[in-house]
């Protein structure tokens, strides 16, 4: 280690930690990134895919603000798909199956090359806090052996610290009756940090997640399964870095099913499942249950889908999506072999459940800075979330806000109406997070406005404001903006004779001619067909055309959504002082007062979204705020 004094120290080199390092570097900060193993940066600990419904939106937004995750997924992608194509433009989502090794390689190289970023191999064991302000960390370097030389603990100073500890805080792995203290299979847990947090006044809780066994792909009979290819043309994430893409879209996923035998095996061994024996106390996610959970809760379902996903091109190992389990190893073996096509399958890595500590997020502000200790930020699973994409989004926000704080500026807190990142942040500070939080599009009440296609349009003004773009990125943003304007005016001004429309598509109209925009608006016209009608090269830029077509076709609904946003924005514009005192406020219900004092919302809008706070409580709160003003 050459340096012990940084602007920002980041604990954890996962999807949150690396994004935080990247944005901090863009903000010209000096960064120390503390990780136990520098070869495992942004490791995909669970499924080998990035994106999906809602998550793809987050990736596009992080990318629009200069993040890594989109470019890394494009680079390491081996199969690209676009989901929900028939359900409307706002819920179309990109998902990329990745080569796990390539992904980590890309992020590791990239992070190591970042200006001002030093990677520190070791374990952060203690926070240094003075007067409720974070001052740095005590770090045990990876090369030191704790049992022989405790003295080799190094103190690093920093103006801000970001905790992005993933599942490592007091991580406890369960496989059947066996438990192992571990942060991830084969890696040690981080033991001191929870104690340090508790000492600083934080409450901590316990969550659970799980992962399925990995299988030797050469032992699978794929003829009994259904192949799922990627989509052509391959949809990608990144707005800026098309040069790093070595597009490889040939890999297949496969769909298969469990059998009645699978259900029988699991039921026969249910008393050995830590999930049901009381051995696991943390709460797991309902959207990602273990196979034993599914068999028990949906007993009437004769079979369950299992997706076979490749872990990469250079390996035969596959990921058994839908079969997360913490059953004992011997049960996992026979249960896996009861799946269609997996009769002779060999397990390469056992599935497991893991419990870990988190800091319930009523203890953070929407900026991701902690309430009890200033300068201390939290991102990712420590806030009770789950998923690479959710972690990346928080890493970006924590890194950016730590840098802004050091520069003496106000934090960046995007609203619910302009980004999924905003929805995520707002949910964290207004909801009780009792299970690992994952993004869904249904969480976004202004969903129609928050599309993958317009992520950059929604966020570029902030990126410009904070100076995170380089010259070529700025040029690209401006070029896209004017291309969109031109495209829209082209579609509005180019007219097609109605006889042509009738002859080609059998569509009738009372008017003599129609503009391309008129055609796009018609529900009986397939937008794709527009390519037959316009041949002047305008439509070659597919992304721009699609974006323009969405704006034209859905303008009525988008306007409606805008009106709703304007109506509901009022409460979000009313601030509540950080130290507002809720003690003894008259006219409000006790439950509301308790919740408000706990979450300490910073706007009337946040207050109104806290469960148990009624409109009449908000009315009364308005009066007290008026008095303070």
């Amino acid at each position: 280690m050459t340096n012990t004094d940084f602007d920002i120290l980041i604990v954890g080199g996962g999807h949150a930690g690396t994004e935080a390092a990247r944005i901090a570097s863009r903000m010209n900060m000096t960064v120390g990134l503390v990780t136990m193993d520098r070869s495992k940066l942004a490791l995909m600990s669970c499924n080998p895919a990035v994106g999906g419904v809602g998550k793809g939106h987050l990736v596009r937004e992080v990318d629009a603000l200069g993040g890594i995750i989109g470019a890394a997924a494009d680079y390491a992608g081996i199969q690209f798909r676009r989901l929900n194509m028939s359900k409307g433009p706002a819920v179309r989502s990109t998902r990329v199956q990745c080569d796990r090794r390539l992904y980590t390689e890309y992020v590791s190289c990239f992070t190591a090359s970042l200006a001002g970023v030093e990677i520190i191999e070791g374990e952060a064991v203690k926070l240094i806090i003075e007067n409720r302000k974070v001052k740095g960390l005590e770090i045990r370097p990876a090369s030191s052996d704790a049992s022989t030389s405790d003295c080799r603990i190094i103190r690093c100073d920093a103006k801000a610290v970001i905790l992005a500890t993933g599942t490592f805080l007091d991580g406890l792995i369960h496989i059947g009756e066996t438990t192992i203290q571990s942060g991830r299979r084969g890696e040690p847990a981080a033991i001191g940090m929870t104690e340090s947090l508790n000492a600083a006044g934080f409450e901590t809780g316990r969550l659970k997640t799980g992962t399925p066994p990995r299988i030797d792909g050469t032992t699978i009979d794929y003829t009994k399964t259904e192949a799922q290819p990627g989509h052509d043309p391959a949809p990608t994430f990144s707005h800026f870095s098309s040069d790093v893409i070595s597009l490889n879209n040939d890999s297949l996923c496969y769909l298969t099913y469990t059998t009645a035998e699978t259900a029988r095996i699991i039921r026969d061994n249910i008393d050995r499942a830590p999930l049901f024996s009381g051995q696991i106390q943390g709460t797991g996610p309902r959207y990602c249950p273990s196979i034993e959970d599914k068999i028990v809760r949906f007993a009437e379902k004769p079979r369950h889908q299992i997706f076979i996903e490749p872990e990469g091109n250079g390996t035969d190992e596959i990921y058994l999506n839908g079969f997360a389990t913490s059953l004992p190893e011997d049960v996992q073996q026979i249960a896996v072999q009861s799946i269609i096509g997996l009769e002779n399958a060999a397990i390469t890595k056992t599935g497991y459940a893991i419990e870990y500590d988190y800091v319930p997020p009523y203890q953070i502000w929407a900026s991701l800075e902690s309430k009890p200790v200033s300068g201390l930020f939290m991102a990712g699973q420590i806030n009770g979330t789950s998923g690479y994409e959710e972690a990346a989004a928080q890493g970006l926000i924590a890194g950016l806000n730590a840098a802004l704080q050091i520069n003496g500026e106000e934090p960046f807190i995007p609203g619910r109406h302009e980004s999924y990142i905003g929805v995520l942040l707002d949910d964290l500070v207004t909801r009780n997070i009792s299970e690992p939080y994952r993004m869904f599009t249904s969480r976004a009440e202004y969903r129609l406005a928050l599309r993958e296609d317009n992520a950059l349009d929604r966020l570029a003004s902030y990126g410009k404001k904070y100076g995170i773009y380089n010259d070529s990125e700025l040029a690209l943003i401006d070029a896209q903006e004017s291309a969109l304007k031109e495209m829209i005016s082209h579609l509005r001004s180019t007219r097609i004779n109605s006889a042509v429309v009738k002859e080609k598509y059998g569509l009738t109209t009372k008017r003599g001619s129609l503009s391309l925009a008129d055609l796009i608006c018609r529900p009986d016209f397939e937008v794709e067909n527009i390519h037959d009608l316009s041949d002047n090269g305008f439509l070659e830029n597919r992304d721009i055309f699609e974006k323009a077509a969405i704006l034209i076709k859905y303008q009525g609904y988008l306007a409606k959504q805008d009106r709703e946003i304007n109506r509901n924005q009022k409460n979000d514009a009313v601030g509540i002082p950080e130290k507002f005192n809720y003690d003894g406020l008259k006219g409000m219900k006790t439950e509301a007062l308790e919740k408000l004092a706990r979450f300490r919302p910073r706007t009337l809008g946040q207050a109104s979204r806290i469960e148990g706070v009624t409109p009449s409580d908000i009315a009364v709160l308005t009066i007290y705020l008026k008095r303070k003003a």
Partner: protein
Amino acid sequence: MKKGTKTGTGLKPSDTIAAIASPSGSGGVGIIRISGPDAVAILKQIFVPQNPKSKMIPYMLRFGRIVSHNDSKELDEVLAVYMPEDRSFSGEEMVEVYCHAGHYALKAILDNILELDVRIADAGEFSLRRFVNHGVDISKLEGAAEVVASKTDLAYRLSREHLLGSYGEYITDLRKQIVHLLAELEADIDFPDEDSVGNIGRILLDQRLNGIIENLEQLSAGYRTGKIIQDGYRVVLLGPPNSGKSSLFNRLVRQNRALVTPIAGTTRDYISEWIDIKGLPVELYDTAGLREGRGKVEKAGIEATRRLIKRADLILYIFDLTGRIQGLPEIKLSRNQQLQVVLNKIDLLPNAIGRIKKWQTKLGQDYASSVLSATTGVGVKPLIKTIYEKAGVADLTESLVVTSHRHQTKINACLKHLRRIQKMTKMPSEIVSFELRQAADRIGEITGAVYTEDILDEIFSNFCIGK
């Protein structure tokens, strides 16, 4: 500075609200109150002053007519007053309209206003705006908070109590159905890989939707019932002179209050009486003949009759069966008004089948007629039954009655979104969901908000999500 952290900005409400400010069913004058930045602009769109040159002066009452903003149809004659923000109750630009107190007049005007960019006021909202906008003495603020809380809590308690009965169960169940439908759609959107979701095709969606819409329509109709029970069903007797209006009126009220003479034109103004038909309160009006009178008194009576026609729920148009066979005069009926022809004096023509047929041919198929004798009472019972049926009230002992206009507004807004889904068969599911979400939000304003968590709970308890 970040938008939203500054205290004290944006506290001023920026939208315009309206509500009926007079207590329901009492007094002769109804008050509609509009408050907010667009209050005057709204008034200008619907108010036609009697004197077109009169100007809007604060606190000066002006006489005029309220007309429908979209077709300029007259709704009522009113007095309107404007109060500037520095001297109004709410501390905002305010307008009050004083109109006839009948529920339908009030409701028609308010509905007309709500179609403009105006929101119906929440319980206690005028008071809340007053507290927010007026510089209130700090020492009084705690009291103010209590007042607002008790006001809104009272409203809340009242609506809670209201929601406890069968009406409450019914509407809570409707909310559940909408949330369930939303969960189906959302599960399909958020979990496209799952085989247990996405089974709801358009046909099933329509089926469920139709069921919900039907129930909401019944509720909405139930509101009509509720209001009729509260305000009465207005039946106006019309017809040429000497056709026997007053005799029938008397027969119906079994009282001899109207003056009956054989000389045309003796009932100069209208008189009214309440009768009770199987629990349905009917307000019966006897009118002057719709004949252009010559005398001043008669003219005034005819003018009163014209106004009465506008506010009638049912018009009984009475002809003398033995008199000259003639068609109906032109009477403009609004959507909610009905007309029933009555052929009187059957007692004078015992074998009248041929003549009745001739009348009916002349009147046309649209007007089924009751044949009766007001003098002997023959045929009056069937007419009473007809009046009850025309009122269209559900069985009063069993129907769900929505009595709050606020609820009625929400139910209708909810219906509007659901009907839009019905109409557009090619909507992508995210748009269906958008409309459904709004429908749920409107119902939620009666039953308590529908949160994403409710929908997610529904998804995870009904579907096996597991990829």
